[in-house]
């Protein structure tokens, strides 16, 4: 069970800010594939990975980051602080 969080327009497209996902995905990429296969709104939201960023347990990560032992994965567009 992983907490999956969405921010900004990704949150708006997927329709929820966070959800618990039951998954055996080995990597972030596998998790994206799993969610995208599940429902159209995920497939659409994840269609352009170049415009997405991911954090694993609150640290920026790559899409091939492993999920073993991970509690929280967050997806969001490039950050615009400052």
């Amino acid at each position, binding site marked *: 069970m992983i907490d999956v969080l969405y*921010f900004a327009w990704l*949150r708006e497209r997927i329709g929820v800010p966070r959800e618990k996902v039951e998954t055996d995905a080995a990597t972030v990429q596998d998790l994206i594939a799993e969610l995208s296969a599940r429902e159209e709104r995920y497939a659409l939201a994840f269609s352009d990975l170049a415009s997405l960023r991911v*954090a694993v347990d609150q*640290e920026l990560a790559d899409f091939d980051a492993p999920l073993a032992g991970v509690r929280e994965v*967050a997806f969001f567009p*490039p*950050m*615009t*602080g*400052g």
Partner: protein
Amino acid sequence: MRIVVQAKPFDLGAEANDFAKGVAGAGAVVTFTGIVRDTAQRDLEVMEIEHYPGMTERALTTIAEEAMARWSLADCLVIHRYGRLQAADPIMMVATAARHRADAFAAAEFLMDYLKSRAPFWKKEITQSGADWVAARDEDEAALKRW
């Protein structure tokens, strides 16, 4: 080192004075303040800033610790708001203090460059013609390469 993430407004002048009082031995204090822009062309009604509670504080702390490690700083400060902001509201500020101005300037620019692209904030601008998420600028990502 002080990291503040808050919804409520802050007063640039009061924060700058407090910061400067705490670093009297330093000599050089630099501040950067980001302000919600409004222009006649867009009629901004409100800016909504979303963030990632938990990760935000971690990311800002990491960035500030990195600045303290890279330059000879007496202190540094980061304040960033989230929630609903109006035109002319301060969004965020950083302050740095050092013995020499080159360190204070470089550290403040470093903090800003990292904060722009590596701290989990997202801005949405609501104008009379609709709402839009602010897009990341290529220059902001490129700015990280100089450090």
